[in-house]
């Protein structure tokens, strides 16, 4: 087993394409990708073998805290097999349904995948989804059955499943325990034996695919590239196909997983490059890089990721707008799957409408905003894109879903396909599904286009006066529950006044929900002499400050927080 830890002594010219393997690990969430990645890193000496190696590739705080992989990370490993030295490039990927986009990008840089399946849970929704991604990309697929050390492990059943669902012969499965390291060596061997070497020649002109990028404050854009031909070295002048701009290579090297600068990178290899790009838009994912003197045909790029869930994000106070704007800009530099659109709300001022791949994606984004950029944000309830259509057809069933088909995977499990309005699954469907099925059920979705729906405009009224900022579009079936909830929240956030306040939700002129805020009959301090004056004045001053921030709707004083409370996500 080689242990190349020296930064300087790696001579990449010793690794022709035929001794390189590019692969990623794909799996359903929690089936053990990152643990396997840890073991592989340890076994090949990339990291020292200690107790503390837990999900090393999960660098982000949010990843560590949640125990999930958010951003794919790359690591180059050196492996000796039958007397030969191999360079194995591993790309770890997120397992969550939201982040399949990251998976498909990583896959484009690889020739094979390790498909991990939990020995107890078996094939799950993301296993299937990821399999298809790899299959469509015509990669070699090595099935790995993990967690065989656990009590309920049933590798035989899982092997049958794999055979049935993916049509992969059961003999090809490798049974391992990533936690204990059992059989992990066999995985490395399989990578060498079964995954083809990249079809790239050093003699071809330099051509590289940008499959990821990061923004570093001091050094600029760091692009992750996979070389499909030729070689590149420090000082070379390269061009990005997308923008046609030229750059000089400042630094390049391997990721082990930390950066290891080298002199050159060769065809078939995967690494990073820094070339004086200041804006991450200059290192567009899917972009092709080539040498200035030797232009090449661009590699097929990527379809941009489609946002599925939208949320409004607003600063706590308009004075914090510039700070939040720069935080969002910096964070989206490293997450190009977030769509950003300026938006404004009557209640909350100027902000954005951000599109995410899913709820988890949005939560993680939010968490990163707060942790890494110290931004505090008001997140308004996610809305889904609506298109106004004149005709209206009704969809039936409680979640307004239509069953499309049903397939039995094995004697224990069934896969069902439904057509849902997105609004119905966007808030809590996933959670409910999990709790109702004790976690067994899993689901994946794809956009099925727009369908007509019975939507109406719901107003919120205070003592008969509509509050513009709180007008929403809801489905008729949801109007009552949504209106009631809003009225209840308002009742809790509007302070009592000298008259009664009627809080109503209305559709047109029809009131569908109502709450009442009682009037004060007595509101005066009983005793106010000598000492009490100071305390009373303090309290009054606070009220005065609060009052300045209030909005008058008719004669009702409404604090700004009331809008926020009503509009924000109900967690």
């Amino acid at each position, binding site marked *: 087993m080689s242990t190349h830890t020296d930064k300087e002594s790696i001579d990449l010219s010793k690794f022709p394409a035929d001794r390189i393997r590019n692969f990623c690990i794909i799996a359903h969430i929690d089936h053990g990708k990152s643990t396997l990645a840890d073991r592989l890193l340890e076994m090949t000496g990339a990291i020292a073998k200690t107790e503390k190696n837990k999900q090393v590739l999960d660098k982000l705080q949010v990843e560590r805290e949640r125990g999930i992989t958010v951003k794919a990370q790359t690591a180059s490993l050196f492996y000796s097999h039958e007397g030969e030295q191999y360079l194995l490039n591993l790309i770890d990927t997120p397992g969550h349904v939201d982040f399949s986009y990251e998976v498909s990008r990583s896959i484009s840089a690889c020739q094979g995948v390790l498909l991990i399946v939990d020995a107890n849970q078996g094939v799950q929704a993301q296993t299937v989804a990821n399999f298809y991604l790899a299959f469509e990309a015509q990669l070699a697929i090595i099935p790995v059955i993990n967690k065989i050390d656990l009590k309920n492990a049933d590798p035989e059943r899982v092997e049958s499943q794999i055979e049935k669902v993916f049509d992969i012969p059961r003999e090809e499965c490798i049974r391992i325990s990533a936690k204990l390291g059992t059989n992990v060596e066999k995985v490395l061997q399989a990578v060498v034996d079964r995954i083809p070497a990249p079809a790239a020649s050093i003699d071809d002109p330099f051509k590289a695919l940008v499959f990821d990028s990061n923004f570093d404050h001091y050094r600029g854009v760091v692009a992750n590239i996979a070389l499909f031909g030729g070689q590149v070295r420090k000082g070379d002048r390269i061009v990005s196909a997308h923008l046609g701009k030229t750059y000089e290579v400042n630094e390049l090297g391997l990721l082990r997983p930390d950066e290891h600068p080298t002199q050159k990178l060769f065809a078939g290899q995967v690494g990073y490059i820094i070339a004086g790009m200041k804006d991450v838009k200059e290192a567009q994912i899917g972009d092709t890089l080539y040498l200035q003197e030797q232009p090449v045909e661009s590699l097929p790029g990527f379809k941009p990721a489609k946002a599925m869930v939208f949320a409004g994000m607003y600063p706590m106070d308009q004075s914090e707008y510039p700070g939040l704007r720069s935080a969002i800009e910096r964070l989206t530099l490293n997450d190009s799957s977030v769509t950003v659109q300026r938006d404004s709300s009557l209640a909350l001022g100027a902000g954005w409408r951000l599109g995410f791949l899913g709820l988890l994606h949005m939560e993680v984004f939010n968490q990163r905003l707060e942790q890494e950029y110290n931004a505090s944000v008001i997140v308004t309830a996610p809305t889904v894109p609506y298109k106004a259509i004149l005709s209206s057809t009704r969809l039936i069933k409680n979640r307004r879903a239509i069953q499309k088909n049903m397939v039995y995977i094995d004697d224990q499990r069934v896969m069902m396909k439904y057509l849902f309005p997105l609004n119905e699954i966007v808030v809590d469907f996933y959670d409910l599904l999990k709790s109702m099925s004790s976690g067994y059920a899993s689901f994946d979705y794809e956009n099925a286009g727009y369908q007509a729906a019975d939507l109406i405009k719901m107003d919120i009224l205070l003592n008969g006066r509509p509050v513009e900022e709180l007008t929403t579009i809801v489905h008729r079936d949801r109007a009552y529950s949504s209106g009631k909830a809003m009225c209840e929240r308002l009742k809790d956030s509007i302070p009592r006044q000298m008259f009664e306040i009627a809080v109503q939700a209305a559709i047109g002129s029809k009131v569908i929900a109502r709450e009442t805020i009682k009037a004060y009959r*007595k509101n005066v301090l*009983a005793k106010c002499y*000598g000492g009490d004056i*100071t305390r009373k004045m303090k309290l*009054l001053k606070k009220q005065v400050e609060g009052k300045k921030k209030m909005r008058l709707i008719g004669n009702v004083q409404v604090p700004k927080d009331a809008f926020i409370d009503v509009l924000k996500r109900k967690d």
Partner: protein
Amino acid sequence: MISRTLHALTRALSPGLRRLSHVSSGGPIEDGSDSAHLTGHASLYVHWPYCLRRCSYCNFNKYISRENNDVMMTECLRRETDALLQLSQVSCVTSVFFGGGTPSLAHPLTIAAVLETVAGRVSLSDEAEVTLEVNPTPEGKSRLEEFCVAGVNRFSIGVQSLQDEDLKILGRDHSSHQALQTIEEARRLRPGRVSVDVMFGRPEQSVESWESELSELLKVCDDHVSLYQLTLERGTQLFRRVQGGEASVPAEDVTAEMYQRARTTLHQHGFLQYEVSNFARHNAVSHHNMSYWRGRQYIGVGPGAHGRFVPLGEGGVDREARTQTLEPDVWIREVQQRGHGTRRRIRLGHLELLEEVLVMGMRMTEGINHKHWQMFSPQLGLREVFGTSAEVREFLQSGRLVLDDRGLRCSWDGLAVLDSMLPALLVELERETSRKLQSDEQRERSDPR
């Protein structure tokens, strides 16, 4: 024995001492529109911090004394009175109030000593109101006469309730019968100058029981009643009990009803409500408290006492909000070391002073009259400050506020919800004073002469 000592004291005293005799309920102290009165006069508040026990609702600055510190406390009260009188450079003290704690636990000599110190420094009229708070235990009652001899001419008796059950819940150490006897004795000694404190919104109280309690009270009380709604203060035993579910206080609309009924009932019995919680017949108002609400200077002496005056003696020009050190032991040390135990002093700017005048003045049913306001805000009248606000106009239109030739005040309805209106009034005050300031500055810049 006490009387003999007092007589000896009287003989030994300097001729400047006021005569200790029955004082008739003279007319109200002249308000005076002369602003020299603002800094030339003050009322005096003296805090006796000790109690025998703590009532379950009380969060005042009071202490259960472990050893008898009375002599030391008395001496320090004298010293601080002297020091602060000098500092304020007032020429006249208009009224004196002994509060606490339980001032009726103090020795009458303490009262006499403080009064003597005052009379030795400034002019203290024979007619000046001198009030003592009284806890109506038999012991308290037995001393009332001596307190009179010492110079007290008004009593404020903490009755709180006429139901013995409730007195227990409140943690009081007297019975209702004892309270009634104390009232009787006080009225004998100082007819027309006795005030009674009662509390409503007590646990288990109903509107009906409150009404009947009030009628009982009205049969025996003198010409002044203070009605306080029980407020649950954090850190008190009652607060904890209510939180823990062992006790409950009446709902908000019930206490609101209790208040309105009491106001009406007292009115029917000839009492004039002159402040949120204070009612008087035959003009027997508390002059001392009126001076608070009218924005006059007051000097606070004793642990935790509060004061508002201009320290002319130091060359001060602005009125200061002052607080004396809270802890008796620490306060005693400080007084011994430097003559007074002032812990905090904050200069009140023009706006802050006006804010206090507004907040306090609006508590009186007479409100703030134009002349009164002018004393504090010569350049900006009431109409200029409040006449333009839409919200204030709404208060005026709905009949809660009155702004006319007399001044600004609450109506009967408005008084009950004063605190709901104050923020709007304060916003206007801030806005108009700063606008005036800006336009004055601009004028100066364009024409600096």
